[in-house]
């Protein structure tokens, strides 16, 4: 094999490896098979006051965190379900801001999903049963982009709808709180 053909073979292998890494937008429109329902009470509150350690990260998190499709769907739902009405575009109004590093009930994606599903005191309604679990996780994935948590290749430089806000790729990342860190 000449060095030239060896070089081109290496390039092809390298390209195949690079293509294999394209999981930025894995779509799973049917989140769970028919008939398989989540038993009630499997998504408990994840409020962990004081120094107590929170439970390990929900395994579903990796389906939604850093997933471009989930983030885009969540962004549409954020407008459609009128999250904007209280939280604005992350700046907060009647509801707390979502673009800073302050999380009353945890800033991990499963903690945010639990807050959306269960509702929280002083105004946050419960969306369990009003949205599907899949949609709630999509929303949680989008909420994390407001404080710049997902990797920059997962968020879009252009939002799904017409918008004059700064692209999500330019959102600075707020530090994660140590109390939210998942136990291995």
């Amino acid at each position: 094999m000449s060095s030239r053909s060896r070089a081109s073979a290496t390039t092809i292998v390298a390209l195949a490896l690079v293509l294999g890494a394209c999981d930025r937008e894995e779509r799973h429109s049917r989140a769970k098979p028919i008939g398989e329902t989540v038993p009630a009470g499997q998504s408990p509150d994840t409020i962990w006051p004081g120094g107590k350690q929170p439970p390990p990260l929900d395994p579903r998190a990796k389906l939604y965190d850093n997933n471009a499709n989930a983030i885009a769907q969540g962004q549409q739902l954020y407008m459609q379900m009128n999250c904007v009405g209280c939280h604005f575009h992350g700046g907060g109004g009647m509801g707390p801001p979502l673009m800073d590093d302050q999380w009353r009930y945890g800033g991990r994606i499963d903690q945010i999903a639990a807050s959306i599903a269960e509702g929280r005191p002083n105004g946050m309604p419960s969306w369990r049963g009003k949205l599907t679990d899949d949609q709630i996780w999509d929303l949680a994935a989008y909420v994390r982009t407001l404080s710049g948590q997902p990797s920059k290749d997962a968020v879009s430089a252009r939002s799904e709808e017409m918008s004059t806000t700064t692209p999500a790729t330019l959102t600075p990342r707020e530090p994660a709180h140590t109390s939210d860190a998942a136990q291995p």
Partner: protein
Amino acid sequence: MTRRSGSALLALPLLTAGCSYQHYQSTFGNAGDGTRHFNTLFTIFLIVCAVMYLAVIAFLLAGILRRRRAAANIVEESRHHESDPLMRSGLIGWGAVVSIGLVALAVASFFTDRSDASVAGKEKLSVTVTGNQWWWDITYTAGDVSKTLHTANELHLPVGVPVRVFLKSNDVIHSFWVPSLAGKQDLIPGRQNDMILVPRKIGIFRGQCAEFCGAQHAKMALVVDVDSYGDFVKWWEHQLQTAPQPSNPLTLAGYKYVMSGPCSSCHSIAGTPANGTIGPDLTHLASRRTLAAAMPMNEGNLYGWIEDPQSIKGGSHMPTIGLEPNQLHAVVAYLETLK
């Protein structure tokens, strides 16, 4: 000519005839003023162009034969046409035919545009069609606000009445195309386009999104129902009524699920607490001809669509909820009462 190419030539006109056999969706349908004017223009263009084409071919053949016959004797002379009176008058005649043909096409085109534009300002009804991935939201507005009507995927029009259709989009570019009635017009997010439809035939026609708009672009169809004016007014009055109350335990269970479950987050049913604006209005769902802008409305399709929309129209905003069988029976039974 071989037999195969001969049969192919025979099959071609049959295939093109196939494009128009269906009255339901046809670019040669004469069901609206738009298509009628356009078909007349198309016929004139076809005749003029066919005559010109045949003339050019005839001259070409004559030239080839003449050259072959006389090639041996004729010495090339650069300006020989000036000396040949027959050639001279022939060329003048040819120029005249070309000019007359072009003028005829320009005049025909001008009058077609004029007759299309002449209905502007005479419209008696306005409808707003909003494109969504992947369905059509339809709003009729009248002077009286209480007569405003919301429906989806089914456009009713009175025959012979010019209607102004406003076209908007909520997400991406779509294109409104009812080939039997008129040409295409795009629906562009952030803009409002409009067109005038003048239906001339009573009947049911099919429309289709004509601009690729995502994974389920093919399943974005529209039914246009052209009625007599009386029937149209009757339809409108019926559509303004609110949904009936559930009358038996099964439909009551369905009603309760629809109101408390995820359905009412996106859909609205007039006369009930369901007031979502994301999905199609369901007030008179069972009176429509199609479901989900793609399937005929019937019980089987309703069951399938509600249980697992993502396997029928993957990527649409209607989520697969995973209803239990008893919930599904109840929801379908309730939706079927929404006549």
